[in-house]
């Protein structure tokens, strides 16, 4: 039955007659009753429909809200996943180090890992470097800052791109590039991108201070990371440097944005200029106390202080089976350190003469001991010690012994012993009151003279002064002939013991023969600081008793004694090299001379505590899959300021940044150790003396590192919905496809690598997490 037939049955049940037409309810009552039912039915239906519609609408809204919320949560979890992915990448790029095994260096956006003798391998620290499916992370995360308010190029260049690749995540948890994930054919749930910055390549606002021109003690040495100069922030000179420093003293900054509280004049725009250059947390040491300072192979660096070095373990290597002692580290029988550079041997093969490495260590001790301390460094042997360090005493510059005989018949003979003392340590003087020179083993000339002679000395011997002392014994009757028939001199000068323990003893030398009535002999020491056994140490003096113009050599700038704890590993340049007259460790370009360069030693030693605030000289930005357009020069300038580089400051900073070497050692694309910075062109500042040229490395030697323990991860995550009909696994947004991005979360995390205890397998922890909104 259709609707019309039903209606007919209901309304037009029979034909209308006249009575029907006359009745007031001619067209009713039946239709009216049916109408009520209809209205009621329709009303109920309408009500139910309305309820249904409202309910459905409500459910749709709630459903959409739930889905949106879910997508946001999904995006947030993806962002966490991006951070985890970055941590995994960092973990691969910073393996546990060990001698002969792995070592690594880090830089913004990457790391180099070196395994044994193999060439260093680049580990990019950002997502998907190889594909063209890129996103400019800098445009969404303002990593390098905002507008270029300071006018300093190229920092904060708004055109800066950090192009990294998208990694896609599908429903089954597969993660990879577009190509990889599309192969699984599963619906996509999102995509992620990230870039890893290196915190140690920035200025730590909690440790840096206002230090323009204030760096350096009497020796031009700067001790700690507090000499990284805040005034080099932008615009330079940075007006709020003092305020930042004061703020850090009151309450150390937790996040870099907090430097804005240092002063009302440090506006958000100025902060933006500098946000790429500063950090609040940077370490290159080990957890937990950051006093561990590690060398290229993860071994604790040897503290240079005498208390640590002055042990049998360090000087002789006795009992050192673990490689922790200075001697063993320098000896490095397997040449591990040299392998990092170029396979040019070890220090053991470089320094063999004059007591070799043991004397070198003794010299480091002697450099630091107090002038009032007279006890020599011990090497565990019974006194006298075999390896004597330098002492802050006058040295014999020349010694002359002369016998003069008058003619018979009343012949007499005179003996004159002349000694010229030289005090070479700049900035000091020596009070010689009460001292005396004792010369022994002199010829007695048939018993006419004593074999020993004492020469009193007195007065203050100033720095750089040559002070003569003399004793004359004359008028002794003499009856014999001064010359034996055989021609062998009767008078033979044998040896002399000098003032202090660090002085060399004289070798047995023949007095030159002389004719007539006079016998004279004279010896001038080439370098009084060297050990006695060096062949050719003493050089014959032939002209006069006055100090020769040739001795000492013109550059005496490195004849310096600290007489206290070293303040920088750069002071190793002041250490005398055993076996080389007037030779010192050289911290300059080309310092190797075909062997392992001296500056490699900088990585073996330390002074004081390592840790926060050191600047990673591997600071070249690895931006991702594009050429670098951003440079991080400000921290390097802050590092170098106050060395007196003048106009060269920017040049040297640029040379370090781009690794413009004088000579290339090891990996040409990264600094393998801190010493390699000595190879940088123009770092030696053109001074006329060696010490002057090494002023920069003495200043920065303690302030730099080549690897960071802290990293900032910038992550971008988008959740994706692929409706039915999409090509699962392949992101295809409108207009060509239907896939939609349903949520986006940006996050910033600071991750720290640590070893607890030191030397154990590295672990990683999140120190800071922030979701970003802008």
């Amino acid at each position, binding site marked *: 039955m259709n609707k019309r037939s039903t209606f007919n049955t209901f309304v037009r049940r029979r034909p209308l007659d006249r009575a029907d037409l006359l009745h007031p309810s001619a067209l009713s009552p039946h239709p009216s009753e049916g109408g009520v039912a209809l209205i009621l039915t329709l009303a109920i239906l309408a009500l139910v429909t309305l309820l249904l519609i409202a309910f459905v609408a409500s459910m749709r809204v709630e459903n959409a809200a739930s889905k949106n919320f879910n997508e946001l949560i999904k995006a947030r979890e993806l962002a966490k996943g991006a951070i985890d992915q970055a941590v995994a990448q960092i973990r691969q790029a910073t393996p546990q180090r060990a001698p002969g095994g792995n070592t690594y260096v880090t830089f913004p956006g990457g790391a180099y890992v070196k395994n044994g003798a193999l060439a260093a391998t680049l580990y990019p620290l950002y997502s998907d470097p190889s594909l063209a499916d890129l996103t400019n992370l800098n445009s969404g995360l303002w990593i390098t800052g905002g507008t270029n308010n300071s006018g300093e190029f190229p920092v904060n260049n708004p055109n800066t791109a950090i192009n990294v690749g998208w990694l896609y995540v599908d429903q089954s948890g597969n993660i990879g590039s577009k190509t990889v994930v599309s192969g699984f054919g599963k619906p996509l749930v999102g995509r992620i991108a990230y870039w890893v910055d290196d915190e140690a390549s920035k200025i730590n606002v909690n440790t840096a201070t206002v230090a323009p021109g204030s760096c350096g003690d009497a020796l031009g040495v700067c001790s700690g990371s507090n000499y990284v100069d805040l005034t080099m922030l932008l615009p330079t000179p940075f007006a709020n440097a003092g305020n930042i420093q004061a703020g850090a003293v009151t309450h150390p900054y937790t996040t870099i944005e907090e430097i804005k509280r240092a002063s009302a004049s440090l506006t958000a725009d100025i902060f933006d200029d500098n946000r790429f250059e500063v950090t609040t947390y940077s370490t290159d040491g080990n957890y937990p106390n950051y006093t561990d300072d590690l060398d290229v192979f993860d071994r604790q660096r040897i503290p240079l202080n005498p208390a640590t070095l002055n042990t049998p373990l360090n000087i002789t290597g006795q009992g050192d089976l673990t490689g922790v002692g200075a001697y063993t580290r320098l000896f490095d029988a397997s040449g591990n350190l040299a392998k990092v550079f170029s396979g040019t041997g070890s220090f053991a093969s470089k320094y063999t003469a004059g007591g070799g490495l043991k004397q070198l260590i003794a010299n480091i001790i002697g450099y630091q001991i107090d002038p009032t301390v007279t006890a020599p460094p011990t090497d565990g042997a019974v006194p006298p010690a075999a390896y004597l360090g330098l002492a802050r005493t006058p040295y014999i510059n020349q010694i002359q012994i002369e016998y003069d005989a008058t003619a018979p018949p009343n012949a007499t003979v005179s003996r004159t012993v002349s000694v010229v003392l030289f005090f070479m340590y700049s900035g000091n003087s020596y009070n010689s009151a009460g001292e005396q020179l004792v010369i022994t083993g002199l010829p007695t000339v048939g018993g006419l003279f004593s074999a020993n002679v004492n020469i009193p000395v007195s007065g203050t011997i100033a720095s750089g002064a040559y002070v003569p002392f003399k004793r004359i014994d004359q008028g002794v009757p003499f009856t014999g002939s001064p010359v034996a028939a055989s021609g062998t001199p009767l008078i033979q000068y044998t040896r002399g013991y000098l003032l202090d323990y660090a002085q060399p003893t004289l070798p047995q030398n023949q007095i030159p023969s002389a004719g007539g009535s006079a016998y004279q002999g004279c010896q001038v020491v080439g370098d009084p600081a060297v050990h006695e056994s060096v062949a050719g140490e003493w050089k014959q003096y032939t002209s006069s008793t006055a100090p020769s113009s040739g001795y000492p050599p013109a550059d005496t700038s490195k004849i310096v004694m600290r007489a206290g704890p070293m303040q920088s590993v750069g002071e190793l340049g002041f250490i005398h090299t055993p076996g080389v007259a007037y030779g010192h460790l050289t911290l300059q370009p080309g310092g190797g001379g075909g062997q392992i360069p001296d500056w490699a030693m900088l990585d073996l030693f330390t002074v004081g505590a390592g840790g926060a605030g050191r600047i990673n000289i591997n600071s070249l930005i690895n931006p991702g899959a594009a050429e670098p357009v951003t440079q991080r020069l400000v921290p390097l300038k802050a590092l170098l300021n106050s060395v007196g580089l003048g106009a060269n400051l920017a040049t040297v900073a640029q040379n370090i940044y781009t690794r413009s070497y004088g000579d290339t050692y090891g990996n040409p694309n990264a600094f393998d150790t801190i010493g390699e910075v000595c190879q940088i062109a123009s770092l030696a500042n053109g001074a006329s003396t060696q010490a002057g040229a090494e002023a920069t490395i003495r200043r920065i030697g303690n302030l730099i590192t080549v690897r960071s323990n802290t990293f900032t991860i910038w992550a971008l995550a988008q959740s994706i919905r692929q409706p039915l009909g999409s090509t699962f696994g392949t992101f295809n947004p409108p207009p060509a496809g239907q896939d939609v991005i349903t949520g986006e979360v940006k996050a910033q995390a600071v991750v720290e690598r640590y070893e607890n205890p030191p030397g154990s397998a590295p672990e990683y922890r*999140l120190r800071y997490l922030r979701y970003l909104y802008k």
Partner: protein
Amino acid sequence: MTRKPSARSTTHGEPLSRAGYTIVELLTSMAILGVMLAVLFSVFDQINKAWLQGENRVETFTAARAALDLMSREISQAIATPNIQFYGDATHAYFVAPVNSNSKNFSDVCEVGYEFDRDMPNGSQNWTFQLIRHFIEPSSAANALLIYTPMSLGSFGASDEPVALATNCVLNLGFQYGTISGGAITYSSTWGTPNKLPYAIVINTDVVDSRTATKLRLVQNVGNNWVSLTNSTLRSFSTTVYLPIIQP
């Protein structure tokens, strides 16, 4: 519905074309109508209850989701240093986190606190239930330094605000603080090392819909009427937040 023609006639002998109703018919029809209306009312009542139940449920979940999401998101960004404390007890959590999105401010880190406030203000007969978010935004250098001041409970100020989406709906808030040792997490109701962060924080909360909350506000003695009023609608929610800084 159709009706048979009546057998009664008019006084003119003509059959009535529209007859009246007997009392039985009326009663019958009224009874039927009553039953129908009763059925309809019952149906509508059920629909209404189901509707409200659904609405309440959605609202409860929405409020819980909003509250827990906000709290967990902010707590997950918490920081503790030798200078910055994390305070936690069974019913309060105070911390510092970089949750400020206004780059013009003096810092991105803010002081945040969460607590549940059940109170009957003076002069009022109504209870208030509020999940309070304590918030110091470093809009000035002075405010920026407040985050380094050890936090004191109960010092709520003008910057404190109820969590908007969860206003009045949250009836309880509790925290547990977890430490990890040997891979096992142990929870306690207070956090005793303020310069370190817990490994994890469990947030427990009881949430009702706003209608129930409104009724609760009006009762004189919340304690005695709690169960009866909330029995059907109160739901408990819990989430665990793992914090970023792990102290080994």
